[in-house]
């Protein structure tokens, strides 16, 4: 009996050429993004060698300057892997900056108390959106779009003007440096890296993480296999809400102010980073490691444009657009191949 299986499956494996197998490998998009990052970095090295691009700190700054984006994108990775989308990310970040600045500056609350409060607000917001998506079977696009408007509106309820933070404990936290041999990292960058490691562990070594992949692969099947698909979905949006709030705190540290217009549209940067990192928008396939490279690529584009000096910052947008387009096409080619 096993002979028949062998006769059918074995040739399958043998006849598939090396390239075809490589194309089918789920890790390929991550490798492509990593290679792209490397190529861009080397190009930067050779072009701006004399302007200090080779300094290790330039590389470290990628993490420092994009710590909040990295955290937000990690949250978005969970959502997208599960086959959903979260458009409220930018607004939750903006709201968290306002909320934090207002509590610290206007209410005189110590920052160590504000942090857990802000995180709880983000997580609860995410939980509620997940609850609505799951229990009323509404598309995540619409629900999180409502969340986007809601949180942006709440920013303005707190204050119409920006609140700058002068609290000394906040600024000392923001300026703290963790030296790492040739360079240093900020507190924000360290937090982002910890979040990243935690996300990697959760996605690959816990049942919850595997359920996220299963739901993204086929939600109906996941349910019929007896997996608690509803709870997983709600949890995914809670994770995203939590990450958004955490990103908001990092953003507050980075910029040291709250503003109703902070981080407008950052959800789109996060989604772009996830997609460039090789995660399928339809869910079920991708790696949080890819997201890191996605964020690094976006960050590197910004740095290169700064080094160039003559280019306007909107070139970042154009480059992001081109990259997104290219990566969506790669994804398309990969999924098309799988179907046949």
């Amino acid at each position, binding site marked *: *009996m*096993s002979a*028949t*299986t*062998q006769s*059918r*499956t*074995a040739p*399958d*494996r043998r006849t598939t050429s090396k390239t075809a197998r490589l194309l*089918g490998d*789920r890790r390929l998009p991550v490798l492509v993004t990593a290679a792209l990052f490397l190529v861009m970095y080397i190009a930067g090295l050779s072009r701006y060698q004399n302007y200090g691009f080779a300094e290790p700190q330039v590389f470290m700054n990628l993490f420092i300057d994009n710590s909040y984006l990295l955290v937000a994108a990690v949250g978005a990775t969970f959502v997208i892997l599960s086959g959903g989308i979260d458009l409220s990310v930018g607004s939750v970040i903006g709201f968290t900056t306002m909320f934090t600045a207002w509590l610290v500056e206007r209410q005189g609350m110590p920052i160590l108390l504000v942090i857990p409060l802000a995180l709880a607000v983000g997580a609860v917001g995410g939980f509620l959106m997940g609850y609505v998506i799951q229990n009323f079977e509404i598309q995540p696009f619409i629900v999180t779009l409502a969340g986007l408007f809601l949180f942006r509106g709440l920013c303005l309820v707190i204050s119409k003007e920006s609140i700058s933070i002068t609290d000394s404990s906040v600024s000392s936290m923001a300026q703290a440096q963790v030296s790492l041999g040739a360079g240093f990292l900020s507190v924000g960058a360290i937090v982002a890296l910890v979040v990243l490691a935690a996300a990697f562990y959760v996605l*690959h*070594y*816990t*049942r919850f993480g*595997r*359920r996220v*992949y*299963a739901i*993204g*692969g*086929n939600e*109906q*099947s*996941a349910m*019929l*296999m*007896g*997996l608690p698909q509803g709870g997983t979905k709600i949890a995914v949006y809670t994770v995203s809400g939590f990450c958004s709030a955490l990103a908001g705190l990092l953003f507050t540290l980075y910029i040291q102010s709250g503003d109703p217009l902070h981080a407008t549209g950052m959800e789109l940067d996060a989604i772009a980073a996830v997609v460039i990192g090789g995660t399928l928008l339809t869910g*079920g*396939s991708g790696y949080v490691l890819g997201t890191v490279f996605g964020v690094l690529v976006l960050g590197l584009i910004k740095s290169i444009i700064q080094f160039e000096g003559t280019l306007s910052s909107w070139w970042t947008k154009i480059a992001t657009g081109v990259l997104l387009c290219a990566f969506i096409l790669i994804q398309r080619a990969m999924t098309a191949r*799988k179907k*046949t």
Partner: protein
Amino acid sequence: MAEPRPVLEMTGIVKEFPGVRALSGVDFRLFPGEIHALLGENGAGKSTLIKVLTGVHSLDGGTITLDGQSVRFASPLQAQQAGISTVYQEVNLCPNLSVAENIFIGREPTRAGRIQWKQLRRKAAELVDRLGLDIDVTAPLSSYPLAVQQLVAIVRSVGTGDSVAEGSGTKVLILDEPTSSLDRDEVLELFALMRRLKEQGVAILFVSHFLDQIYEVCDRMTVLRNGTLVGEHMVSDLDQVGLVQLMIGKALDQLEELHDHQLHSGVGEPLLQADGLGRTGGIAPFDLEIKKGEVIGLAGLLGSGRTELARLLFGADQPDSGKVTIGGKQVSMSAPNDAIAAGVAFCSENRKTEGLVPDLTVRENIILALQAARGWTRPIPVSQRDELVAKYIKALDIRPANPEARVGQLSGGNQQKVLLARWLITQPKLLILDEPTRGIDIGAKAEIQKLVVSLSEDGMSVLYIAAELEEVLRLSHTIGVLRDRRLVAQIANGPEITTSRILETIASGEHQ
């Protein structure tokens, strides 16, 4: 032989849906180590019985006893935990995960919450091995053909046994139409797995429309009709004719009629001519001539290019070589619209995804193609439309005969008839039927086959694709044999042509 105690006993099962009594007092027993067929026409209550058993539907009356204990399940998960697993026709697994993960997801071995990947892979490999399958458990599920995926689904459903700490082990395995999309080799492999599980004492409930398969693999069968129990028999005690009579509750007039049916000889002048038509990756270039009033049957294994050939003739795929002439005029075939304009109609094999719109009514579904042919700016007058719809509902005996019923709620056979009606209403010259009888019951099958015969008698040409050779043989004037995406032979049907001759041609790829 002293009768052992049944592992599962259902008595006096009653299930009511608004307005319908789906099951009225059905008894059903299942013994350990047997393969038990559940039979009946569509709508006889097979699926309902299974759904009541597995906790998808609640029970309105009767008792279920599992291992001597009265049980009542509120969800499939509960049933699964009690040892009743179900594998459906559609593979309900996650294609993006590895085989091993699909087998174990939801009950992965963990230590302090951390999934033990090595242990998981090893256990999966052991399980697959013990069931005599040769599958690389680390490969993603999507890298395997559907048949293997189905086997994996079965491995998952029985994998709760001693190989995992949790779970009490599968006592009852329900296979709901697992074979409908498998080819012969794959079916054999499935049967081997079923027999191996049977030896291990698992009770298997098997639902299939293929009577031959029932006789090949089952020990005992229970027949349902209109929600009532007709009888429980040992397979060896009842022959196929007797079984079919039990199932449809009347003598086999319809079927006999078909068996004795002589192919009509009124085949006219050529209608469609394909010269060197082909598509890379689809089907090798072929020549085919279809005459007026002729039925051409396509025989070949699943994936041999039957559907690909049909899709080329309908313009659903673009050929990269050759040309098509219909009624003496060359047709470009760059899109289905060209084919429809030339009088070609195509009933797809995936009636759910590529044909019907389940949320529209029977009337709207039937009218769709005709309206498309007329153009959207010229609506069909209401009276004419209702008349046409009524005519075809009657002619094809679509049940319920209610033009306002939603198509999604009809049974498979009736959905197929709605799809047929849609195309017949446009009065095509050539009707392409791709697996029109798949997954529908024997009564509806006979009706559809009769319809094909009468259509061809009226001068319509039919290209008929079916997995069952008998069906092809019974209906076709000419049989096109496909093998490895190549049209290898065209055989004129006659008394000397038998299914084994066709099988030989499929196997050898040549016709003597």
